[in-house]
Each structure stands twice: as C-alpha cells, then as structure tokens.
C-alpha cells in the first residue's frame, strides 16, 4: 500500500479542508465554480447562468438555452430555422438526454428504450486503428423520422458482477450491463464491431474546464508513470476542425472533443441529426440510401444549425454555473475530505484547477475552482474497459469525470447512477469499480473503517 508522503498529505488535506468550507469564508477559499458558483440546491441547480454574466449578455445565454431545449422537427417544417431532425437520431433535443443539464441514466431492463444513453460503434480500420462502422457509423441511431426505420435498438440486461468484499467481510453487490443490439435494419453488425454504451454527461461548469490552459493539464500527465505512484494520466489528442490542427481532448467520456463548440456540433450531428459547418454530411452512411433520399432542413448556410446558432449554443454551455458545496462544516464532511485525500482520490480527481488569464468570456478568466478532475485519461482496469479505443484513448482508459454536483444529482436528475454506463447505483459502487491505476486508491478506501468510508461518501455527497 502506498501513502502520500506526510508533508504532501498535510498540505493536500489543508487544501481540501479549505475547499470544504463554503460561502462566507475567509478569502483564499476555493468555491466549486469560483465566481461562477451559485447557491442552489433545487432541481435547477445545474441550469443557472454564471452570476457574473453582464445582464446584457443574458440574451445570448437564454437563446442558447432555447436552442438546447429545442425539439427539432422533421424537415420541411413551418419554422425553417429549427427543422432538419435526423433522418436518424437518438433524441430530438439536447435537453432530452441532458435533462435539466444533468446526467443521463441507463434503462432498467431490455424492453426499455434508451432515453439518455447511446451506443458508440467502431470497427478496426486498415491500420488497426478504429474507424466508424461502414454501415451504422460511429453511433447507433435508435430513432428515425417518419417513413424511415431506425438503425436498431439497444437492449440492456443487467447482470451480477463479482461482489466486492471489504476486509471486514461485508459484501457489496455490483452489476454490469450486457448490451445487445437488436432489430437491426441495415444488415448485421459483424463480429469485430466494438461497442461502448454511455450515458449523457452533465453539462454545467464546462466553460471553466475549457478555459484551463493546456500546459496545466499536460503538466499533470505522467504517461510513463515516471514518479512511480501507479498513476499514469495521459492526454488525448484529437482533430480540432475550427483550428484545423491537433488539439488536447477535454470533453466526452474519453476526452475526444477539444472544444465545447465542437462537442456541441458533434452531438447535434450524431445525436439529433442536425448538420453544421464541420458536420455537414448528414447523419447516415453511403450505404443508407433510404436515409439519403429524404429531405433535409438545410438553410442559407447549407446546414441545419447556423454558425450563429452554434455560437449561442456554445455560449450557453460555456456560461452555465456550478452549484456550491453544501454542508461544508458538517464534521462528517470534513472528516470525509481528509479521507478522500488520504486514500489518494485527489491524485486524479484533482481538487483545484485554474483558468487562464484570458478565456472565451471575461467571466471565465482567472478563476480558481474545484471540479475534482484532472481531465486526463486513466486506465481503470479490465472491469470497466469497453474495449473501444478513441483517438489516443485505449479500450481501458477513461477521462476522469468531474465530481462537482455529485450530491445534487438525485435532486436534479432523479437518480444516482454513475460511471459511463450507469452501472454504479450509488457513489460507493462507483468507487468499488475503480481498478487499474485506481486500484490502490480503491483498496485504501476499502481499508478504512465503515465509519470512515461513510464520511468519505458524505463528503462526496456534499459536492
């Protein structure tokens, strides 16, 4: 078992304790979203605009919000600027999966459709690197416009996984999903198809994550584990269409999108079938001639989502606020913060990040905030692996998800399912699934007393 050196532990604990204090604290204490923090514990906690946004900019936020909530309709429709759904899609709006800007959930059983989850697809390419499936593309579309059959649907069956047994003998049951793709309408998938089912991520605080200087993220990376701590965070490098260059990936379960603008455009295209400048081809492959024959909603710019609309949508995503920590002074929360550090969770779930001196918007610049992520890829072990590489991310790697807002998920989204496929029914299960680079930290958590573990969970619940 490896522990942090004493001095570092003390410093990290002090830092985290400083974090765990809430509003009205002495200066120098880090709030969850810096100046973008809101005190909100209602179901709207993830949907507030950044408090410092000038009132005259609110119009951009609300228009972006409107676009986020827009139910796109089949073309041609009476509102030309908001048509062009599909022809293949998963949901008709962003908010349908990211309900109240929160996290999605998996279906409870095989007969229930995915409402806020999707299945990514790929096959090995000529050089072994994965490419989109030649017929079904890089994502299964389980809905289609009238007159077209959807590509297929995912049936999720929950199976027991090996229970985790604490040193004291207490067992925690764990489960994993078996995903079967059924009712396929354009031929079989083929034996070497890679699949990865993922729930929708929450979308608040992303402007802050986008504004962290690349050098700071790279500085935390340790691809060869040079410091020998068992953790080898790596960066993903992905193509940035706007910059026409390779860039650091930050967004998505495997950090495969470099900017919010591209993340939004890619999601609009892949999930709703709405074309835009760099995703102009339509949500179907050359093999899907039935889809290609249908009308689209292209407007003056030759795409369905105009550049200005995409700007507004991006602005909305960039300026969503972060809810403040609750119950920071609760003794269990304070003890849990110490336990979080002692177990080494913050090695990847980094407690503090800073944005650069300039950012897309003034309100994002120069902020110190607490996302609990290093934005790096980590091998989480065979149990969590999806076997589907993405960019430089291997089939066993996942980007560290941020932990802010964790305790509000139930209020906002009505559930507490965690991890990429929602297999963890609560935070405890999520921790116990940690393997690979995170196995040591998980073991340290497991080695705590039941009371100490409850404190750590209380701390997580305060975020």
């Amino acid at each position, binding site marked *: 078992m490896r522990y942090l050196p004493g001095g570092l532990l003390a410093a990290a604990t002090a830092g985290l304790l400083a974090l765990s204090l809430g509003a009205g604290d002495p200066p120098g204490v880090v709030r969850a979203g810096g100046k973008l923090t809101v005190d909100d514990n209602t179901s709207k906690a993830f949907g507030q*605009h950044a408090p410092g946004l000038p*009132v005259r900019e609110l119009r951009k936020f609300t228009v972006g919000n409107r676009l986020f909530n827009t139910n796109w309709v089949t073309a041609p429709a009476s509102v*030309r600027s908001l048509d062009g759904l599909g022809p293949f899609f998963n949901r008709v*709006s962003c*908010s349908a999966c990211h309900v109240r800007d929160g996290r999605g959930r998996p279906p409870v059983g095989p007969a229930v459709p995915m409402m806020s989850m999707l299945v990514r697809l790929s096959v090995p390419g000529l050089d072994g690197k994965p490419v989109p499936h030649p017929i079904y593309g890089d994502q299964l579309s389980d809905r289609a416009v009238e007159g077209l059959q959807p590509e297929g649907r995912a049936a999720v069956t929950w199976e027991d996984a090996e229970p985790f047994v604490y040193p004291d003998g207490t067992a925690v049951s764990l489960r994993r999903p078996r995903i079967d793709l059924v009712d396929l309408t354009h031929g079989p998938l083929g034996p070497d198809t890679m699949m990865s089912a993922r729930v929708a991520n929450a979308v608040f605080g992303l402007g802050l994550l986008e504004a962290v200087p690349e050098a700071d993220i790279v500085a935390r990376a340790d691809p060869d584990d040079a410091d020998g701590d068992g953790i080898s965070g790596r960066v993903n490098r992905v193509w940035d269409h706007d910059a026409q260059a390779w860039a650091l990936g930050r967004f998505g379960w495997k950090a495969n999108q470099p900017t919010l603008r591209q993340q939004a455009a890619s999601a609009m295209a892949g999930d709703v079938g709405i074309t835009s400048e760099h995703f102009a081809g339509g949500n179907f492959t050359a093999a899907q001639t039935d889809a290609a024959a249908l009308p689209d909603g292209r407007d003056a710019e030759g795409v369905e989502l105009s550049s200005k609309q995409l700007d507004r949508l991006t602005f909305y995503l960039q300026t969503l606020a972060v809810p403040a920590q609750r119950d920071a002074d609760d003794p269990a929360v304070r003890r849990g913060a110490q336990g979080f550090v002692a177990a080494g969770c913050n090695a990847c779930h980094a407690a503090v990040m800073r944005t650069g001196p300039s950012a897309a918007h003034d309100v994002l610049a120069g902020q110190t905030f607490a996302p609990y992520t290093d934005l790096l890829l980590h091998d989480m072990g065979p149990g969590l692996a999806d076997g589907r590489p993405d960019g430089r991310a291997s089939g066993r790697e996942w980007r560290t998800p941020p932990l802010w807002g964790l305790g509000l998920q139930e209020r906002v989204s009505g559930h507490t399912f965690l991890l990429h496929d929602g297999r963890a029914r609560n935070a405890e299960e999520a921790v116990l699934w940690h393997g690979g680079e995170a196995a040591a930290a998980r073991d340290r958590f497991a080695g705590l007393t039941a009371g100490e573990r409850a404190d750590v969970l209380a701390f997580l619940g305060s975020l």
Partner: protein
Amino acid sequence: MKKPPLTAVAALFVVASVGGCAGLAPPREPVSDRAVVASYADLAARQYAAALADARSLADAVDTLVASPSQATLAAARRAWLAARESYGVTEAHRFYNGPIDGVDPATGEEGPEALLNSWPVNEAHLDYVAGRPDAGRIADAGFAISAEAIAAENQVSDEADVTTGYHAVEFLLWGQDFSADGPGVRPATDYATAPHAGRRGAYLKAVTARLIDDLTYVAGEWAPGRHNYRARFEARPAREALADVLSAQATLAGFELASERIAVPLDSGDQEDEHSCFSDNTHRDFVRNLDGIAAVWRGAGGPGLRDRWPADDAEMLAVDAALARAEALAGEVEDHGPVDTILASDAGSAGRDALNGLSDVLIEVAEAVVELGAASGLEVVIGGE
C-alpha cells in the same frame, strides 16, 4: 402680544409641511427595512390568495364545460383561464429567491411547485392530438391512468419539454394549437363531447386544474400569517437580507426572465409561436401583469413598497422608478400592437418588433438599476435565473 408676524411665518411653514403650497413638501421619512419586508409579505399573501381564488373559479368553469360541453361553456372556461392568469401573473415577482414557489421546503424536502404551475413551452403531442397526429399524447393513451398524481409525476421527467401540467397545459386543452397569425387556437367544444377520447380529455383537464389548486393552496398557505410556515421564517430573517432577496427577484424577473427568456428568445428564434401563452395569444397580458407584479412590490399596494425604504430624493431609487415607468409604458405599447405572435410574424423593422425589442432593452435597464441601487445601498442584489 406681539406674535402675529412670527405666527404668520410659522403658519406658512405649517401649511408648507402638509404639502399644500408651492413645492415645499418636506422629505418623507424612509420606512424601516422591517416594515417594508412585513408589507411585502402581506402583499405576497394577498396575491397568492387571489390567484387561488381565481383558480377555483377556473375549476368551476372547467367542471361546467366537462359536464355540458358547448361553445358557450368552452368560452366561459377560456375567460376563466384568462382571468386566472391576471392574478397569477403578478405573483411571479415572488420567484427567484427560493421562496415557497420555487425553493426547497425544509420540512418536506420537496421543491416548490413553480415548474408544475407555469412551465412552457408545452410539448403538445405529448399531451393530446396535434395536426397530423390524431392519436398523439397521453389523452389518447388508454394505458395511462388519468389522475392528478400520475400527471404531476410525469412532468418533465425524461424531457424538459414534456410539460404535462400547469396553466399552459390547461391553456392547450382549452384552445388547442395556434396556427393562425390572426387569432388563437380554435379547439372545438366537441373535443369534450363527441370527439375521440372526449371523456379522457375532460378527465385530464379536470385533473390538471385540480392540481393547480393544490399547488396554489400550498404556496398561499406558506405565505399566510400566523402559522409556522415560510412567512414566519421570512419575517424572522434579518430584514436587510430579505430585502436583498426581494430586490434580486425583481432584477431577475425583469432582466432575465422577461427581457431575455420571454422576449429576446422569441424575437431571435424565428418561431412565431415561441411565446409564453401561445395557444391563447395572451402573452401581452403576461408581460403587463408581470410588470404590475414588480410595480406592486416596488411601489407597494395597501402598504409601503420597497422604494419607500429609501429617501424620496435617492438618485438610484429614482432611477429604478424611471426605468420601471418606461417599461410599463412600452408594455402598453406592445399590447397595442396586438398579440405577440402577430408581432413575431411581422418583418424585421416593424413597429411591433421595435416595441418588443425596446421593451426587452428597458427591462434590462430596470434590472441594472435595481442592481445599482443594491450596490449603492450595501445590499447584495444578484440576477439569477436558469
């Protein structure tokens, strides 16, 4: 005694001090924070009680419609809905500070009913038939058991657009979709008599109206005097804090909700029907009544208003006065240009569009003025909103 000249001068001052003479009115004493907060709480209680009473009248009209559907009873139900919106509209000035309407009730852990009362836009096809889809919606779905609980439990669960309850669900059930630039929806009374699913439609309408009453009863109860409720906690808070919250609410309602969400978005979205009360074409009244709500809080109604807390010559307070008066004038102008969808359908540069744009701009000035006032007075006034 040789008093008269002095007495005469004194008399002049006395007359002046009761304001009878040429502009020599003395400064009004500012009202204490506590008195302003108490007056505000009283206002909230009265306004929610009025909204509840009008909702009950709406329920009566709905019962009559469902029992004997006809053009006349449908028209009466529509009038009752419009009247109920008048009293609800002013209460929106009590949102945005986690009061009973939208905060988490510490006793129950439940959230206030704002989303259940006033969410929009309604996903019409999720509720009832729409053009081209005669069997759409929960009403046509025999597998969905209609009850107030089932309906509320479904509200915005898997999609924020799936609004199943509240004023706009009732509105949709009374008017139907609006395809006209010249008038509101034209749902026929036969929808409650002989049309497919008429019985279920009537049951659904009664259930959502009953839910309105339940929700308003809760909020009115939380503002009622003399109970262990929100009002008691509100009045026990440091008055400055409560005052800052109420000011923040006015700034948020004006600058975020009205100016941006309800005006700028429809102007920018290109969708003629992107208006708050799109089925009834009543959005212009929503604007007017929301402003009436802000005005009632600001100027007071039956008691001191927020403005009375400042000296009569306070520059920042007067700036709010001025901006609010301009906003009210523009809201009246917008109303003169006809229903909002007519304005939205008109070309860029039309008088109606200019008025609506102007209203949005002035509402932002109101919000800015309120924030300025707060800053100048050491009160933390914040514009919120999601």
